[in-house]
């Protein structure tokens, strides 16, 4: 693990978040290196999904959520009033728990972001579709059906198309909010393989309930509990030699 020497793509400081009057995050300090996978683990309600959704300002869609603290994304202050969320979310892509392809063809799904950005050249779009679908490891399965509805695919395939759709817009950071928890084991495995292949090119943050998944694919692991960040370290350290008793209890399956 060389992540200590890497530059950080995202530095968050003293992140607090309220749902109405209820404080759900109690001051999180967490940095993410430019490449590699960081896993956020913790029991339900520990704040890991809440935290990851704060990074691309998904909470803006809800009423009654307040976020404070600093989010430095390569020099961009994510919560500055001048920051354009539309532009921000192009740079920080997100894959959700439920596969959510649009009710269009696979091709249309993948080029969606590019088309909105004004790309019209057919050759360029074709190339982007092939490249993104290959990156998401689904090209071989769908290359003959690109113009069929994405809704006709299996859940695991839909999730990889959703991933390809995000990759097509070339984000700098990828947020994955439990991307495999709605999928069967084989599909989950495919997604994990895909993420491992992308590890050298992207910075990724993955929220996961599966500790074995965290240990298989992540370089670093952060353990959340009750809205606090308990510990963050290389995945090996967290699982084999954690500093805190709570982390030890959680990764050894004593609660959660």
């Amino acid at each position: 693990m060389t992540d200590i020497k890497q530059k950080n793509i995202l530095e968050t400081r003293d992140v607090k978040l309220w749902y109405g009057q209820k404080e759900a995050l109690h001051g999180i300090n967490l940095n993410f290196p430019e490449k590699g996978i960081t896993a956020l683990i913790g029991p339900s309600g520990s704040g890991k999904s809440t935290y990851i959704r704060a990074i691309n300002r998904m909470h803006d869609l809800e009423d009654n959520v307040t976020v404070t603290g600093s989010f430095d994304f390569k020099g961009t202050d994510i919560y500055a009033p001048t920051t354009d969320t539309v532009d921000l979310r192009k740079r920080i892509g997100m894959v959700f728990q439920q596969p959510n392809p649009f009710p269009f063809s696979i091709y249309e799904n993948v080029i969606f972001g590019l088309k909105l950005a004004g790309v019209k050249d057919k050759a360029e779009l074709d190339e982007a579709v092939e490249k993104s679908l290959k990156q998401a490891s689904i090209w071989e399965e769908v290359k003959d059906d690109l113009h069929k509805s994405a809704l006709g695919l299996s859940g695991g395939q839909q999730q990889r198309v959703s991933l390809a759709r995000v990759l097509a817009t070339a984000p700098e950071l990828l947020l994955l909010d439990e991307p495999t928890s709605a999928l069967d084991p084989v599909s989950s495995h495919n997604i994990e393989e895909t993420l491992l292949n992308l590890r050298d090119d992207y910075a990724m943050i993955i929220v996961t309930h599966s500790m074995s998944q965290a240990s298989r694919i992540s370089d670093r692991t952060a353990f959340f509990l009750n809205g606090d960040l308990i510990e963050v370290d290389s995945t090996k350290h967290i699982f084999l030699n954690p500093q805190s008793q709570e982390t030890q209890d959680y990764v050894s399956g004593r609660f959660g």
Partner: protein
Amino acid sequence: MNAKRADKIATGVIYAISGIVALILIAMLAFILIRGVPNLSWHFLTSPARAFEAGGGIGIQLFNSFYLLILAMIISFPIALGAAIYLNEYSKKGKFTTVVRTAIEILSSLPSVVVGLFGFLIFVVQFHLGFSILSGAIALTFFNLPLLTRSIETSLAQIPNLQREAGSALGLSRWETVIHIILPAAVPSIVTGVVLSAGRVFGEAAALIYTAGQSAPALNFADWNPFNISSPLNPMRPAETLAVHIWKINSEGIMPDANAVSAGASAVLIIVVLLFNLSARKIGAQLYKKLTSA
């Protein structure tokens, strides 16, 4: 009595009640169709009505009904669409939203004859539009707007939030999400709603009696200049519709074959409404298939 027996009885009663509902509809349809269909002929469907002698048709009324329907839809659809998008995609809990929602609810429960009389006083009298297709179309818009708004809002609400999240996570603004994702995904069910409401509007009489009027002046179907008074397209001419015609024949018709004309017109009305209803879901389902799988 044991649970199994009670269950059997309950099942039987529920079946019987559902059967009665279906039976009422079937009986009504059968009554209207059996009485009316024998009177139908090409001549009946295309020739103008006659006030004093037998052998009149419903051609002009039929045309008027469709023309009014189309005009009313052209006016009400954009407004309903806008209101529905606001309510489902933009509105936050607050006073303004509550006012809009309450207004729509009250509007939808207004008796259509009240809407008609209001249209008469405001548009026919106050704005000097006279008994005209335009007055009628506006009255129909008032009648149709709340129902259509609600049906479009339901269509939009059926699109899962996942799609909105996916849109904004891809960097789409709220408006872009609505235009590029939500609306295309909702088109089939919106179309179903529009066609269903068309069926309701087509059969409406009370709102039109005092707005579009009860007379059907002769039309020249060779003249499509909407500014000529005898042109079918002229929106300022009075236009008795099929539903109003049926009401009028039965209250003051003096032609010798009034009963036959009324029965035939009723059959046509019910057939058109049935066609709207039956085709609504089919069109929606087919659109969905077409839009989702290229």
